[in-house]
């Protein structure tokens, strides 16, 4: 078990390092620089040179890379050229927003997805199953940003039920520090979370329906009925517990999906999370913000899959024994 954990952690560190390295070189290879001459015509060449020197951009790329890694080892993520503040601070501001968005989306994804999938499996081939199956396929086929725009148009622009963007009311609630402001935050969160959650839920439902159908035909489900258990207990305890095993894989896979989805949804809804931060940084060639965002994102994905593996061990005694 300990050897397994050590192996997993080592692999995780290697993956994160690889992602950071790749991002570092790719973003530097992109045309343009943080201080484009044409963007800053009013800036004299001397000033530009000074800025480059100040941020270490006058050195060779390998040199910059080594320097960056050395700083990283000390826990420093560098300085944002555009925001004029440490990257770590910018990320720390953005992370909670993405975290709450992902959490809400995950909640919608899993509760709606599981419930739908189970319902469809139990009522296999009924009208409800067929209709829900097609709706799920339709939603699942929609690009996240497009669904986001549709919801935005429908519920914000036309119906005025929800705000068009941002994390909170900038005038009444610049900070979330009171109950009305918390409600305001949730109100702002609804559409982005729905956008991200519904697309996920549609996929989860299709997956869970298949897993559940597989399981309710198993003999131990018949055994459970033969014992005289309620149908609810047969399905939700004896069948579902087994049908959740493949679902756990989905939990691990959901993280990358949510984080990439967040980039699009955050852009659509001006949600100041990691995704929006990263997109702006990429466009402005804000090198260290981009690599910093990649670092945090890859760490979250790696953590997600580690969590899924551990969940597997908890849920399936057969794996527990083999791993021990």
């Amino acid at each position, binding site marked *: 078990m300990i050897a397994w954990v050590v192996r997993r952690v080592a692999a995780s560190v290697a993956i994160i390092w690889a992602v950071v390295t790749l991002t570092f070189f790719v973003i530097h290879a992109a045309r343009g620089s943080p201080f484009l001459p044409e963007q800053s015509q009013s800036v004299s060449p001397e000033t530009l040179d000074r800025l480059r020197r100040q941020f270490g951009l006058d050195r060779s790329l390998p040199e910059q890379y080594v320097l960056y890694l050395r700083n990283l080892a000390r826990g420093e993520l560098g300085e944002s050229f555009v925001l004029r503040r440490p990257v770590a601070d910018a990320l720390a501001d953005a992370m909670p927003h993405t975290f709450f968005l992902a959490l809400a989306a995950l909640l919608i994804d899993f509760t709606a997805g599981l419930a739908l999938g189970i319902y469809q499996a139990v009522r296999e081939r009924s009208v409800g199953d067929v209709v829900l199956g097609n709706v799920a396929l339709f939603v699942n086929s929609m690009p996240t940003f497009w669904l986001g725009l549709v919801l935005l148009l429908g519920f914000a622009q036309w119906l005025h039920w929800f705000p068009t963007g941002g994390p909170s009311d900038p005038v009444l609630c610049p900070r979330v520090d009171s109950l009305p402001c918390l409600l305001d935050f949730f109100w702002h969160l609804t559409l982005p979370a729905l956008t991200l959650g519904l697309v996920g839920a549609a996929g989860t439902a299709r997956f869970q329906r298949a897993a559940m159908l597989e399981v309710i035909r*198993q*003999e*131990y489900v*018949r*055994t*459970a*009925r*033969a*014992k*005289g*258990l*309620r*149908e609810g207990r047969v399905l939700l305890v*004896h069948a579902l*517990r*087994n049908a959740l*095993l493949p679902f756990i894989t989905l939990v691990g896979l959901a993280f990358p999906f949510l984080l990439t989805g967040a980039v699009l949804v955050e852009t659509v809804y001006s949600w100041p999370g990691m995704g929006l931060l990263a997109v702006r940084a990429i466009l402005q060639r804000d090198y260290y913000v981009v690599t910093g965002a990649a670092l945090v994102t890859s760490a979250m994905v790696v953590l997600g899959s580690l969590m899924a593996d551990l969940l597997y061990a908890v*849920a*399936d*005694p*057969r794996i527990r*024994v083999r791993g021990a």
Partner: protein
Amino acid sequence: MTEPLLRVRDLKTYFVTEQGSGTARAVDGVSFDVRPGETLGIVGESGCGKTVTSLSILRLIPEPPGHIRPGSFIEFEGRNILTLEPKELRAVRGNQIAMIFQEPMTSLNPVFTVGDQIAEAAIVHQHLSRAAARRRAIEMLQLVGIPDPEERVDHYPHQMSGGMRQRVMIAMALVCHPKLLIADEPTTALDVTIQAQILELLERLQAELGMAVMLITHDLGVVAGTADRVVVMYAGQVVEQAPTVELFAHPVHPYTEGLLAAVPRLDAPSLSLRTGGRGRLHSIPGQVPAATAWPDGCRFHPRCPYAWDRCRAEEPPLLDASQGDAGTHTARCWLVTEPQRRTRRP
């Protein structure tokens, strides 16, 4: 004679086939009784409707595609199981009538400990606390002969062998002391030595707990050693029923005759060393017809060595072939009325 514990009358369980090619009449008018405390053997080839019959008794047939036809009647202690409300049905399942299945590997839930699975029925039916139910589970494991029950109670099914799992299944079925145990091929998936142990265990528990056992098997050898009476099924029907001794001594239906001749025996001349082992094991020619298209007349006639015109035209009812008390031995065969037609041994 004592009042039967279970009376099955004209049970018809049909399945709508996937391709819509018709209705599979898996069980087609089956009637039999199980008396308190007795062991009834139900024998037949694969596909004759044994398992569907047993599942029908607890209404465990998946619907759709299966359904029990109106007019069928399954009476347990005076109540028709087929008309019970779900709640009343649950009170019978696992409590009054329990069931064990053929595959101990797949009939236990892989993600729960065997203790939890045994305790569950006791919690549901007898409202035991979790702790009491756990103690009961340990007692049951002890009863079915599992060593170190205190330790085994927390094990998962995959940590046990096939024989042990079947013991666990039995423990699970008997935890509420049911009046009837339906054992559907309980030894088929097990090694021969383990088979004998499980059968002995069932016999011992039956004597201790005084329950009736419905033993479903394709193996006449299993029936010979354990059952008081035997029901032989073919093509969704009962073709013969008799006390075990009587059935083995005087089989009436040609199908029963064929089954008995097909049992390998070390002392049979056909296989003995004296004939150089050149003799061949008897087999019934042909195969069981499809349940969507049972033959007209007697369903066994295409495979029957004695069949004549009447068998092809007219389906025989269950006829009384008793040598002692009337009705103890019945067979669905015209030979009962025209015994002189039995000209040669198959």
